């Protein structure tokens, strides 16, 4: 007889619960990674010389003037990367972007304290919109960006002006 409260059932239930929690965390982390890896139309990111090892000769380095994808960068080897300048490396690391919740919390923001600090340390409610996200949104105007921020609601009164409310209060007219 196998009651729901038998030791075997309880262990099974525990295993399922732990698995679901771990799985959800990993999915969230993977989504965080993938969200930064998607490539859209370039806006302000620098175009760097992309060197990829040629698989046919496995020695020759070929270079072409396009912005490398995150996947390409992750596939590059140390020797290829060490041939690049520090400036090119910093540009590549920007494309690799934020990879974990921990790093997301280390993003720098400038708030009322007028100095760089992490999202955790900032004395205020902070919504961070990265350049990568603006690319992904395909935003052309400030209104396009603000539309994606929680608790900000926009509505247009004409073609050239839009009003927005922040957490329920109508605070500004954007013309």
């Amino acid at each position: 007889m196998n009651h729901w409260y038998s030791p075997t059932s309880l262990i099974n239930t525990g295993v399922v619960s732990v698995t679901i929690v771990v799985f959800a965390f990993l999915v969230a982390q993977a989504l965080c990674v993938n969200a930064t890896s998607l490539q859209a139309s370039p806006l302000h990111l620098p175009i760097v010389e992309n060197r990829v090892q040629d698989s046919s000769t496995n020695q020759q380095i070929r270079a072409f003037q396009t912005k490398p994808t995150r996947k390409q960068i992750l596939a590059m080897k140390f020797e290829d990367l060490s041939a690049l300048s520090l400036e090119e490396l910093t540009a590549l690391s920007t494309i690799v972007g934020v990879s974990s919740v921990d790093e997301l919390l280390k993003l720098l923001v400038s708030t009322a304290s007028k100095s760089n600090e992490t999202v955790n340390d900032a004395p205020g409610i902070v919504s961070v919109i990265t350049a990568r996200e603006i690319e992904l949104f395909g935003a052309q105007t400030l209104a396009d960006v603000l539309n994606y921020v929680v608790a900000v609601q926009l509505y247009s009164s004409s073609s050239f002006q839009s009003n927005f409310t922040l957490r329920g209060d109508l605070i500004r007219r954007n013309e």
Partner: protein
Amino acid sequence: MIKTPFPKRQPPRFYTPLAMMHFLALILMLGGMRVSAQQGLFESLYILKMTALVRHPVERTSGEYVIGVVGSPDISAQLDRLLTGKKVGEQAIKVRLFDEIAGLTSCHIIFLPDQYSKKLMRVLDAVRGKPVLIITKGVGMAREGSHISILASGEKKFEINKKAAESVGLRLHDDLLRLSTLVEGGTQ
């Protein structure tokens, strides 16, 4: 009908999705490890590039070029694997792990991983006045006295305390300064 003492039981129906979730979780974990490894790779590359962009006094330009890592065997092993065999001028790079603060003055560069950033003051005391480049990770570390701090995000990837570095006889190349936010502070 014979009743067997151990009747064959059907496995619960949630076993199949459970196995699939375990499999997917394994794939996701492997993907995450790959990204982390690549970011550690960038830190190693930054340190390698800084060996060329930071000039030590003449008396430190012979013998081995020692990069010391405080506390973290994993990071030390990775740097050792990637950088050993490289040269800074005529000096061969040697990576050493330091569990204790003693002996740090023999280093050209000290890398303090973010999980050991609380040891910064002790490191600064140990190498005070010596031409040893101290590299840390995270915001505000250069204001506390490290010479270069690698940032996780932002337009500028480094914070540099130029005054602290120059006070111990280190010269920083303009190419490095151009890519960095200059800060002041610390007790060097």
